């Protein structure tokens, strides 16, 4: 995968971005742990759920800005005049940022279970799986939505429009059972809700399977849309 390597090389030359990608989520979870120090049970429920929220948000932002840059600086047009398979481009982004999402989740979980004092509850592979899927969700939607933006400023504006409604409805703010019926239907099928559900403890295997299935369907659909936005010919 040439494109995976190229994107990782770009990141390697930009240590500050890598630092932010790794440090900010860990620091936020740490802050949450600290702020809940006087309410011991709460961090145990809230902490793990953020594992699904961070990769989705961060990868969405990073991917939409970097691919928009490719669209505007001419590199994408140049690649499309070459024998580049669209899948190479799309999967290159998905692959590179999936690796970053995994690194991010390993660091966040490691710190949560040691320093921040989170008690083990789930199985680690499920957490990594959620972080990976959430990262891929962010990347896939970033690729697709970056086609709608014409400037980096607009791309950044998509973040609140895409992420905040999901954050409001994913069950972190208001328990899903207390939402009005219509909103409940919407919330149940949002990608971030699935990521948060997949991490909650003591559910059946079928339940987890459903949540992962929802995320994977969204990832595939958004990647397909993203690859459809790579037009070789413009008006």
């Amino acid at each position, binding site marked *: 995968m040439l494109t995976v390597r190229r994107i990782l090389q770009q990141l390697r030359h930009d240590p500050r971005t890598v630092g932010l990608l790794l440090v900010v989520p860990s620091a936020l979870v740490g802050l949450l742990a600290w702020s809940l120090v006087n309410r011991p049970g709460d961090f145990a429920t809230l902490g793990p759920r953020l594992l699904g929220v961070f990769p989705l948000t961060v990868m969405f932002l990073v991917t939409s800005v970097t691919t928009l840059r490719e669209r505007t600086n*001419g590199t994408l047009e140049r690649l499309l005049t070459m*024998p580049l398979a669209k899948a190479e481009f799309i999967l290159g982004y998905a692959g590179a940022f999936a690796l970053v999402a995994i690194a991010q989740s390993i660091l966040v979980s490691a710190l949560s279970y040691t320093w921040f004092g989170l008690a083990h509850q789930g199985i680690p592979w499920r957490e990594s799986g959620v972080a990976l899927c959430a990262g891929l969700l962010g990347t896939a939607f970033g690729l697709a939505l970056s086609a709608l933006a014409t400037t980096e400023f607009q791309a950044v504006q998509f973040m609140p429009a895409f992420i905040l409604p999901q954050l409001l409805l994913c069950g972190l703010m208001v328990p899903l059972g207390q939402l009005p019926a219509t909103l409940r239907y919407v919330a149940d099928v949002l990608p971030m809700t699935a990521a948060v559900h997949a991490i909650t403890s003591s559910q059946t295997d079928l339940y987890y399977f459903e949540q992962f299935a929802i995320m994977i369907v969204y990832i595939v659909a958004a990647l397909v849309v993203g690859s459809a936005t790579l037009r070789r*010919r413009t008006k």
Partner: protein
Amino acid sequence: MASDMAHELALDVAQLRVMRGRQEVLRSLTFEVARGELVGLLGPSGSGKSTLMRTLLGVQRITSGTARALGERVGAPSLRRRIGYMAQGSAIYPDLTVLENLTYFSGILGLDQAQARRAMDIVDLNLHAHRLVTSLSGGERSRVSLAVALLGEPPLLILDEPTVGLDPVLREDLWSTFSRVTEEGTAVLVSSHVMDEAARCGRLLLIREGRLLFDDTPAALLARTGARGYDEAFVRLIKGAP
């Protein structure tokens, strides 16, 4: 490879019209370019040079007329490794080194690292191989972009203002490179604003507002306008033509 297809035209454009939005940017252009020709594309800013080049690469939609490159309709998948393109604006990754850029693009073209180094050699960037593109000067960046176009020695080169921002010595080197590759059968279409460079071309295409005003040798341009230099000839032709 070039010789057994020598009968084929490098470019064959007939009654080409291109609309961008409401504006008719190219109006019924007709011209041909043979293998091994070095053709200069000149015209005032906004006359449609870049649009024509993008059309020949198949990334710009054609409104009517036809455009063929190396015997195929422009945009045909088989042309994607046979045309070297340098866009106006550098179209390389600023956050990669020179060599990483060339290695990535040569990988996409199915070429090996040796070809990447060769292209770097032609544009004289060996000393900067491991420098980030962001740390290069404007002229150095455009040489990286040119090197990407030269990867794999394609039989047709389409270069949009490749010598912008270069000093006279480098410009001279690059024009010598263009002449050398045309001797090997490569066709080169170069746009430029520097009229003195017109003398280096075998033929000139002059466009204004999307129309072809002139299609002949540099000597014929001087003869037809009665001008002493190319700048003067250009101005006379652009202003004088109805």
